[in-house]
């Protein structure tokens, strides 16, 4: 599922509907367990103040790292360890999203909310509510509809939920297979979704109907039938859209609904983002790809995990402006400078 949470929600009125449960603290310590060998990081999210990073792994654990201590000049090995690790879900934590005060996590059919203030103080208090089927990612919704969470589900539908009341406002139906990723066009108030069925759908928030449907695998330039047709990576910059997965990563001009560039990246891309005038992308392959809008691959920066699942830029803070990537390793690489790996945080 993908979730979208809009900016601040002032009170949690929907607490009463759902169970509150305390999950137990599990200190990972400095012992290297066999589990670490087989750990994969699926999701990341920075705290609203920008000083902390939360990461979710395949064992259902969320670890909170202190960026300020890891980036400080007198950082030790211990500062690269999480300040807090706890089990959030039974299955992998595929998606993490931060609002102004809370961290939302999704995994195995349930969405939980954690207060950032409490997490920083190492208190875990889970406010969770169950949903149906598995969840993949969160995204946020534009100010048009405040305090909504858009969730892309394993039941092939997109659900919009009001965070304050906790009730589901609407359902967007149209995909024929589960949804991998969601993105939002703020100006136009549209939601974009990419799914396993290979289609990228554009929805209008107000009407709830699918405005466009792009089947990327049908375009010869992009299609890579040897991999498949699913779309696992989707992001927009209002006028432009990046999508990739089975098909190659491609840049689309949304007004004309046509691909302008196709990036020659082998391997399936799992997450991409626009940054300044560049495109950063991660996926299969032990590197972060820097691409230009024109379609060239400018650089491929090596990193620790053999394949990457998540890429996050800390735009909430000016002094801790880093890029972090995580994937099939217990280590999360931190790039203070985009062109080389500074150090790695580890679970």
């Amino acid at each position: 599922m993908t979730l979208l949470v809009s900016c601040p929600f002032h009170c949690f009125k929907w607490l009463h509907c759902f169970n509150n449960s305390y999950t137990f603290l599990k200190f990972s310590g400095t012992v290297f367990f066999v589990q670490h060998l087989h750990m994969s990081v699926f999701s990341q999210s920075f705290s609203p103040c920008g000083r902390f990073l939360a990461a979710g792994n395949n064992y259902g654990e969320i670890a909170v790292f202190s960026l300020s201590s890891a980036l400080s000049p007198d950082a030790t090995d211990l500062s690269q360890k999480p300040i807090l690790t706890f089990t959030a879900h039974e299955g992998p934590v595929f998606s993490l999203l931060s609002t102004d005060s809370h961290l939302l996590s999704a995994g195995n059919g349930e969405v939980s909310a954690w207060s950032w203030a409490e997490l920083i103080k190492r208190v875990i208090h889970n406010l969770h509510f169950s949903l149906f089927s598995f969840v993949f990612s969160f995204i946020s919704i534009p100010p048009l509809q405040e305090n909504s969470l858009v969730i892309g589900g394993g039941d092939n539908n997109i659900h919009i939920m009001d965070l304050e009341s906790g009730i589901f406002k609407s359902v967007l139906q149209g995909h024929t297979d589960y949804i991998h990723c969601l993105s939002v066009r703020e100006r136009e108030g549209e939601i974009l979704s990419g799914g396993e069925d290979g289609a990228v759908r554009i929805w209008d928030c107000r009407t709830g109907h699918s405005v466009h449907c792009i089947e990327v695998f049908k375009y010869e330039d992009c299609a890579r039938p040897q991999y498949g047709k699913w779309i696992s990576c989707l992001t927009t910059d209002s006028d432009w859209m990046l999508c990739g997965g089975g098909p190659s990563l491609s840049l689309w001009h949304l007004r004309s609904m046509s691909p302008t560039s196709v990036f020659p990246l082998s391997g399936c891309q799992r997450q991409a983002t626009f940054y300044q005038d560049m495109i950063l992308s991660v996926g299969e392959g032990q590197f972060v790809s820097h691409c230009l809008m024109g379609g060239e691959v400018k650089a491929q920066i090596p990193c620790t995990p053999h394949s990457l699942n998540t890429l996050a830029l800390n735009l909430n803070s000016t002094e801790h402006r880093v890029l972090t990537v995580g994937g099939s390793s217990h280590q999360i690489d931190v790039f203070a400078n985009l062109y080389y790996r500074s150090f790695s945080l580890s679970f």
Partner: protein
Amino acid sequence: AMSDALKKRKSKVVRSETGTPEGKRGRGDGEQEVRVYSEEVELDGSDPAEDYRQYKLTCKALAKLMNEIQELKANGAKDGCAEVEQKRMQSCIHFMSLKKLNRLAHMRLKRGRDQTHEGKQRVDVLHLQLQNLLYEVMHMQKEISKCLEFKSKHEEIDLVSIDEFNKEAPPEISRISITKDDPHQLTLARLDWELEQRKRLAEKYKESLSSKEKIQKSIEVKKEHLSSLQPGLNAIMQASLPVQEYLSMPFEQTQKQIEIARHLPPSLYVLLVQANAYGQACDKSLSVSISGDVDEAKALAKPPDDSQDDDSGDSDAEEEQEKTKRRRPTTGGQLDDKRREMLKRHPLSLCLDLKCKGTHTHTHSLSVTAGCGCVVTIVSCGRELLNSDTLLNCLYANDQGRETPNPANRYQFDKVGISVFGDYVAELGHPYQWVQRLGGLQFPSETPEVCDSLSASHMESTMKLLRGRVQSRLALHKQFSSLEHSIVPVSSECQHLFPTKVLSRLSRWTAITHHEYTNLSFTRHVSDAGLARETDLFFLAVVERGTARLQAAVVLNPRYPEISPLFALSLSWKGERAGRSDDNLRAIESEVNVFKSELQGPRPGHQLLTNQVARLCVCLDVYLETDGQDDSVEGPREFPREKMCLRTARGPNRLKPFKYNHPQGFFSHR
């Protein structure tokens, strides 16, 4: 005055003329009224002030006369003039009176001087007397003080107190009436009393000595008598042996053991006692016996400075070394000898016999021979395949038994040139730490004392571990033999973990060395994480199906099944893929390595390895059958889908469903 003076002068003249005393005396003897003229008397009589006045007058008169004469002469008087002559005569008379006065003055002076002198003399004499007396006084004082300081020897003797003395001493000594008042007598009496007492006590002492000797003699006699009884008793004991056996009370045996046990070094003794106690109380299958040369042990124990300290015969060996030094002066083989002596074992050793129930009819037994801190040999009747050298490795984590646990040995070894103790492990045995603990030895320790409680606290856990180790090893060996024949045995309790139809087959199972393991390209991450050590066992398994060939490198920790074996995978099928780079292979590794609790089967979990291999085969099946939609390739798929899966790819890394659900029989994601 003038006439007096003349008279006086005359008298003077008379006196001075008569020089001879007879003459004078003659004259003096009352013939005529001779004026006896004594100047002395005159001196007493005259007054000095009067004389002085007289002198002044005379001088004045003389001066006047002179003036007159001078006047007369000036007025032209002739020499010899009568006035002048008269005046001259008068002045002469004046001169004579002056002379007299002068003389008187002199005499007066002389007399004064004499008197002073006399007085002085008298004063001197007195002064001298004073000095003498003072000196004498001082001398006396010194003598007195010396006397006072005198310490008589008698004060050093501790005398009985006065009251006691008065009470105890017989009256002829104490003489209370006299001594009450006179301290000197009291002291004398006390000394007397002391002397007498001492004499008495000396006599008593002599008597006691003689009686002691008598008693000693009688003791000897009795001892001889008792020892003569010994052979008789022995005979009785021998005769009673069959009775003991009949009653199953091995009294004789335990006595013998106790007897021999006295010669064991302390650590072995503790081990014996604790093991016996544990065996009797908790574990009937444990029995302990002592083997070795008792006489040699007795010989070792003879020298008085033989240390009763801890540690493997090193301290004993030191003694031996000193003895041999004297016997062998040659320096050539001395270092070798020293080394040998240092590492010499104690002649006695313990044999711990642990019977473990096997799955078959015969029971296996584990015999651990512990020789003074080292585990010497391990014999297990039953399976020869058990590698006795490494069987007990890592019973506790990191207890490899290659280094001596006593830090002091380092220095001893350096002295004789032993650099690596591990070289001697083969003959001496493994100095495992748990053996030290069972023997009550704890390093580092400040006092080399052997501690009972340490042994007791570890006995139970060590015995359990030993038994568990033997059983798991036996189970492993059984598993190995079947794996080598490409059979993956799955017990009935674990059938539910796997689907009925599994098409992948184990085609090879071989043991490899640590070196070979680290050289494999796909095991780097395990070695880097420090999970593949030299004490571990390594294997290479190959699972095949069709054209696909999966290699699995396995690390087996000696503490199996407590620690799960670790698999690292590499697949060659349409290209090479390794667990690190292929997310799905990594997921298979995870399935096999991480879920020990599911796979270990019923307690004690010996089936972990075979279940892991079975799961590996199942996962390979799923992997091959759910291979991605490759629409471009035409023709039938090599591996048709036979497994039931809900979804073939989930998540950004598109994992396949490897989790088997029983009894529905489908595969899902974790």
